[in-house]
């Protein structure tokens, strides 16, 4: 059983197994491969978890929270967007252990993980867009995006807001549901989840500050075309609608 949990800890990342996920993500070359990993990685963990039976031991919840806090803090000082995505993914997915310790609704847990995976996938797509234009998606290197590539930066801002679970996006309800679920059993864990949420928000704000704000890039760069902008925007809108539709059951 313990080995099973440890293996699940690779997919619903627990430190230090989480390093495997980050290495894998960094080495994958294309958007499709990375998106697939971001989509499926936690789902595999949840499938494995289901075979082990839920709820999981509570000490795993504590381990998961420590992992989330560690990665949340580390994300504060990261500048490389793809690494940032990996760290936020670890911080967010490890939180799935927390409701898993108090509920046996595996379907709900799948949705929880998905609600974090989707904005991270959208962010990955934008990250590649930045890399194409600026040579790297690196905070501080390509600052002032708002005035250089306004469409891309608008989408970037909204997607980062989606990633850090701001209201209306499904993961906002995920975080609320997590806190609501664990509060009766372990109020201290609920507080820890809130701390992780705060760290994610802080990391997102720092990233945006270093990417979007500032004087424009000296060399003009092509912005996203209208079609891509609409497609990406529509993806976000659908994400919001799905989140609002399902939030009743999440809560």
């Amino acid at each position, binding site marked *: 059983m313990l080995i099973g949990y440890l293996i699940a800890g690779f997919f619903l990342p627990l430190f230090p197994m989480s390093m495997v996920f980050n290495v894998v993500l960094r080495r994958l070359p294309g958007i499709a491969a990375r998106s697939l990993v971001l989509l499926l990685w936690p789902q595999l963990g949840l499938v494995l978890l289901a075979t082990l039976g839920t709820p999981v031991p509570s000490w795993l919840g504590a381990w998961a929270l420590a992992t989330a806090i560690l990665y949340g803090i580390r994300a504060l000082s990261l*500048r*490389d967007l793809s*690494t940032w995505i990996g760290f936020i993914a670890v911080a967010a997915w490890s939180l799935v252990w927390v409701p898993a310790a108090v509920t046996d609704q595996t379907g709900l847990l799948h949705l929880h993980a998905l609600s974090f995976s989707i904005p991270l996938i959208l962010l990955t797509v934008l990250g590649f867009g930045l890399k194409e234009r*600026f*040579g*790297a998606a*690196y905070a501080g*290197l*390509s600052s002032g995006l708002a005035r250089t590539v306004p469409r891309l930066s608008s989408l970037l801002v909204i997607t980062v807001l989606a990633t850090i679970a701001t209201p209306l996006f499904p993961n906002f309800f995920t975080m609320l549901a997590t806190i609501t679920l664990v509060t009766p059993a372990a109020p201290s864990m609920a507080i820890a989840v809130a701390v992780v949420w705060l760290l994610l928000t802080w990391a997102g704000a720092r990233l945006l500050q270093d990417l979007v704000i500032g*004087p424009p890039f*000296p*060399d003009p760069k092509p912005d996203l075309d209208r079609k891509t902008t609409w497609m990406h925007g529509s993806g976000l809108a659908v994400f919001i609608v799905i989140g609002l539709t399902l939030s009743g059951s999440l809560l």
Partner: protein
Amino acid sequence: MSPSIGEKLSIRAMIYVAGEQVPFFWPMRSFIHHNPLHGLEHLPFADAVEKGTHLFHASGYLPRTAYQGYLAQGKIDKDALDASVRKFCTTRQSPPGLDLPRWLMTALCKTGRTLAIQSSVADPADVRAALADADLPDRTELTAAQLSIKIRARLPRDMPLYEIVDALYGTSIGLELDERVIQACLDFFDEGQSVWDMPERQRGFFAAWKDLAGRDVKSTLKQLARARSSTMDADAEGAIVQILQVLGVPMEEWSGYFRREVARLHGWAGFIRWRSSTKNYYWAQRYPGDLVDLVAVRMLLTLTLLRKRRHRRLPTTFDEIEQAITSKPQEMYLRSEFYGPNLVPALAHPVEDALLRRNADLLARVFVDYRAHKRRQEASVQAQRLTDLATACQDSAGLRQLSAEGIADLLQALRAFEKHEGMLWLQAMEAKSTQDLVKGISLAPPPPREKRPFVQALFCIDTRSERIRRHLEGVGDYQTYGIAGFFGVPVSFMELGKGSENLLCPVLLTPKNLVLEMTAAAPQDQAALSAVEKAMHELKESVLTPFVTVEAIGLLFGFDMVGKTLAPTAYNRLRQRLHEHKPATHLLLDKFSREQADSIVRAVQRAVIVKAVEQEFRLEPEHITDDMIRELRESALGHATGSPGLVAMLGLDGEHEQAFIERLRTDYRIEPSFAKFQLERLGRIGFSLDEQTRFVVQALRSIGLVHNFSRFVLLVGHGSASENNPYESALDCGACGGNHGLASARVLARMANKPEVRRRLRARDIDIADDAWFVPALHNTTTDEIHLYDLDALPAQHLIYLDRLRNGVTAAARLCAQERLPSLQTGAAELDAAQAARSARRNSMDWSQVRPEWGLSRNAFFVIGRRSLTEATGLDGRAFLHSYDYRLDPKLRLLENILSGPLVVAQWINMEHYFSTVDNERFGSGSKAYHNVAGRFGVMTGNLSDLRTGLPAQTVLDNGLPYHEPVRLITVIEAPFEHALKAVESVVSVKRLVRNGWVRLLIIDPETATRHYYDEGEWQLSPHHDHAPGTKPEEPVTT
């Protein structure tokens, strides 16, 4: 050991010299336009721009694309540009097979970015290989010693230590240091904005700050004291010397170090420098602080912040930096790349990773990889840019055939050219502007008049006057003149109800005479509305009251906000009605005689003694007799020994009597030396008759108005009116020290209307007709309205003409608003004159309006000559027009005055607009929308920034693009060449401005019909042909 007095003096001298490069920053209550590079005016313009832009990290010219836009609009003379390019090419070796002038012209006109990149790794051979799509040639990597030299070259010798640490370790010590210095400046230099004052400010900036500084600073002070086995020197110079020694700054670098430190927050430094060098500035006298204090604060914070980061193994002295560069050159190279602006983005992550791990092998591997990658990238980018240029030039074959040496030549030429191209664009733009101006200039004398004009109006030389003058001349029989807005009378003015003096003259002058505004109206009780407003203000300013009153009275502020936002015109009219109107006033203009002054001092002394007796002995007024007061006064002044009257009244003994008399001397200042001081102060009030006559003669002669005076002679000062605008005084009259010009107009009008003055004028060949009356007026440049003042003094027979005069100025004002408004708001071109005037009025009352008017934006010309010179052409509000008739100035004094005063002020204005336009973030003050008032004397961006010194974006930019067309002031003097040249040569400051190219000078000689243009160190002569509408072309003269 403490530094000696000599060392301290040396520090003070070095910082004084370092401060010279920073322009003064005057408090914004009276905004003074200034040249941000004033400290470099001893250099030629191009050199000063190069030095200044390096010092202030700014741009000195517009980007190429902006100039290309001007070229497309026909605002740049392409032939002049072409000629400049060809001239440049004569000094360069042309790459074989290339038509270099054509390449450079193509680069200027058809490409938008830098063509010769600053390559640090790739060489021309690499570029050649990249152009041929071949592998880069083999090359040996730099040795450790060579690499160390390269790294040191990136760090200027005068760079402060924290900047080096920031550049190599990615810290933000500089930012934190600046924030703490700004906070300290805000606390210390506050002029009443803060509710709670910084304590002990009278001890000086450094001393007061040191006491309040945080625990970290105090810990540094203790450590320093321990290390030196003595207490830390209490004064600023001592602290600076000690810290420089601790940081290991070589003594020969101290001057440069100070220069960089002072320039870092040049707004604050400029304000502190101005403040400490201004005599009689209340706040400076009370709370002294200078640049030495500022540098001491910076040095102490530098040391503190560096030491706070010791746990991160950062170097904290220059020796440690040097050691790191020598022993770990690869790491230091990667650091300077990673935290610098030229990092190869694709390798950012591995470089960061290697730097974090600090593993020598990994660093060495990443270093090699990085250099190779950077070399490829630089070669590829450079090759692409050259290819783009060749394509634009339609000469790809020419590029392909170039050898590595040819490419080296081409890159060298491009690099030198791009360094100088701003100057070429500027000169070509000025050439076109000059041509346009000259086309409109007519030397034809004005037709003789059969009768005197209905009105003669003297306006300020301000560019905004050009429009209103043109319209006024168009609506009737008006003759206008241009004169500096203080009308040549430097006045220190004390307005009714104000306790301080306003200096109404250019900052170059210091007024000797004080004029008081007085009223005969009895003092009135404070209006109820004013009392309510005061109460509201105090509630807002208090620390605690907002917490408890916001719910109770917050809504009242809401009404105010709704009114000001939705219906600004009606709401402001209502408010104005509720306010008490200023009563009719008189100016105390004449000097007191000695007897009058004595009498006033006596009266004041008597009044003080009466109050003293009332307060000290609780005597009622009916018991205080004149004899008693006289006796007390005589005794206090030492002319008598006691006051029998007082003794008898109160039954005092001798001891008490003498004690009271002594108190009169010490506490109430009834003593001879103070009486003498009062007499001196009274001596400043007013002008003697001689002075008045001299000022009137000078004003009238300088503009050539010496006969044929009209019934009305308007003296039109100007000022602006806007709401919620810290820059309001920037829109007022620069010649009046950033104040409204009305008081100056009233002063000169009073002088010129005085019969005694007119009698003396006749003796000097200026015969003002008896019925001529000088009327002061104010031109509101935001609304274009002209209001007449002091009409109660107007002779009765003039009243019947007053309606005609009012109609004329109203019509001109409306037409002026109609002409001006389309540049301010979209759709205004459709408005008729009355609607335009209403819109302009609304702008002046709208608190959300960030651009109530364009002010002096687009200024470009300064014309010194008769009105007929430019009367036939519209100058679009771009010209300072100073009337001048050389025939009345055989001794050149008038022209010298114009050059040394108005021209210099106009050049400051012009340069402020120029630099605020070419780099609004560094030389200007950015967007007004983010401004906050700081300490009641300046503005900051956000809540903590350097003082913003230049003009805001809304004054010089339109939708982010230049509205002001940045050219140097093109000055035209209408006078015989020798006459004008002699005057220019005799005014040293102007001669320097002309020779160094800060002002472009054109002398138009009406007697020979020739133009003399000073360009590149020599006078160029050409004939002048009249092209202005309505003038007859002349035959060219032989030159």
